[in-house]
């Protein structure tokens, strides 16, 4: 291994957990659709960090492959999600999720 004193895996996990918690908090509290969307991206990337950490620890490539998948999915999701929000915005002039309650009761 080229790094003599590697960063311990626990650091990765803590970072990942922190990022995930921030993402959850954001997704649950934000009202703006795009804010929620960003928070979800954050949660996805938290998972990516954890995956990379383990991949390094275990010397297993599949973790990194998973990360690439997640990034691809996230990109696709961003495209669809933002598209939806634009469409919603055009209809309703807002993307406040609390006001998008057409299906409520």
């Amino acid at each position, binding site marked *: 291994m080229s790094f003599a004193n590697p960063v311990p895996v626990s650091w990765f996990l803590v970072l990942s957990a922190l990022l995930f918690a921030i993402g*959850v908090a954001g*997704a*649950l*509290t934000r009202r703006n659709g795009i804010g*929620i969307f960003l928070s979800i991206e954050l949660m996805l990337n938290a998972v990516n960090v954890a995956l990379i950490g383990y991949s390094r620890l275990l010397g297993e490539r599949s973790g990194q492959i998973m990360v690439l998948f997640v990034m691809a999915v996230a990109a696709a999701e961003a495209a669809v999600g933002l598209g939806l929000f634009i469409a919603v915005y055009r209809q309703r002039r807002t993307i406040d*999720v*609390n006001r998008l*309650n057409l*299906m*409520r*009761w």
Partner: protein
Amino acid sequence: MRPLDLLWLVPALPIAGAALNGLICLFWPKAPKATATWIGVGFPGASMLVALAAIWEYLHGVNPDPFERTFWSWTAGELSIPVAFLLDPLSVVMLFIVTFVGFWIHVYSAGYMSHDPGYRRYFAYLNLFMGAMLLLILGNNFLVMFVGWEGVGLCSYLLIGFYYDKKFAADAGKKAFIVNRIGDFGFLIGMFLIFTTFGSLNFITVFAQASTLSAGTPVIMWMTLALFLGATGKSAQIPLFVWLPDAMAGPTPVSALIHAATMVTGGVYMIARCSILFALAPVTMEVVAVIGACTALFAASIGLVQNDIKKVLAYSTVSQLGYMFLALGVGAFAAGIFHVLTHAFFKALLFLGSGAVIHAMHEEQDIRKMGGLKKYLPTTYKTFLVGTIAIAGIPPLAGFFSKDEILWKAFANGDYVLWSMGIVGAGLTAFYMFRLLSLTFEGEKRWDAGKHPHEAPSTMTIPLIVLAGLSIVGGFVGIPASLGGGNAIEHWLEPVFEKANDKMSLKLHGIETIEYVLMGLSVAVALAGIYLARLWYLKKNDGPNRVSSRFAGMYKLLLNKYYVDEAYDAAIVTPIVKGSDKLLWRVVDVGIIDWCVNALASIFGFASKGARRVQTGVAQSYAIVFLAGVIAIIGWMLVK
């Protein structure tokens, strides 16, 4: 081709005429009126010719056996019903009455209805009636008979309600149909019992099996009682007679054809046809005789005070039908059919005569507003007089022989009470008929000067003359042996009633003296009735007023027909209608059953209303729940 092979044409021709006229009526309203007459009178006329030819051939047949012909059948399970015709002595008599009298009434109608806007429709209905009536009498099994039976009921409904824009006419038609349906219910049940007992509905098969049974079997009793219920409906006997007087709302020739000469005798024909079954049920026979005698007397008593010329004749018809049932009930089947024959002649004559009068008086039917018409309607008067004498039972006109035969058989059978009811009824008949005659044709004019009564056209008078002739000579086919006659009709019908007569074993021979005495008595009673009527209504006597004020209660009762209609309304019709509306529909159906269904739905509705509070529609609150769930699961895994 023999005429008997063409028997199917007899009912088919009038039905074809009805269909043709009906279609023209609907789809070619501008068709020339003459076509309606040619079709409407021509088809029944052709049917009559075929029928007469068939009868002639049958009479001269080497083989007197019943003639049967099957056309097609219905089958289901054990049931197999041929659509088949039977010609035997009984149906020959009926065939003659229906086609012959029917034809002349058609001819008469062409004159009587000529100014009616519904002329073509009228003939379509009338022809249809002929077809159905012929099916009734020609069918060789109960089902074909029933088809005709209900068919005539339908035509009766249509013709009574012919002037449908008048409410009472439409009501009367409906009443006739429904009351007949009650009778038909009995007929149906009777048929079911016959089928379950004998496994067939064919007359010959059933009667052959029945004659092997012993009298008094309960199933035969129920069977015959059910059939008799059917007969009371069609032939207007107590308790189902109520429709016939109202049926006079129809055009007068209809009253003559359907409600006097042919359809109403269907019940008599049916019982005569089933004579062997009835002969095996002494209880039923008793019931038939008693109902017949009661109806005869009851209807005659109502007839005494009616002022509508057609109502008098209607009650008279009910009464005469009562005599026929009396005859059947005492086992004198041939006498019953004989009376059907003579009654068809004179009652059709009387109705047609009354039609001529009504025509002349511009649709006036109240005899209090007539009088003195003798001068203006000589032919009608003469023929009406013949009919009146015939119905009153004065020899040697037709009514005498048949009525006397019935009374004599009732007496000979030992039913003295029924006989005396009959003889009183005969006196009443003579009275009310001569009252009618006197008030209508004799005495002084009681009508407005504006009316100019004139004799009817020849299309109307010729049928009157033909029927008057038959009313005079029609009785001669049944001159009893005691008067030196051969009683041809009884002999003619003997093959049909042979088995029934064996079971009944009427003792009739060797007491000719009594027969003469009774004959004299009934003629005397009739003459007394006539005398009283002439005295009261011709000589400006105040007898009627005295009697009616003396017995005011009775008079009112009779005038209101014993309040039978009102009683039926109050006891049956109103409770059913009100009960169905107020109780069954509004309470049971809407209030209970549908309420339960909707309540069940509401329970689910309420439950889900509570449950859906959880669904706030805010995605984030769902996510919180989701997160809580995830944490709970992870926590549970850690603790475990």
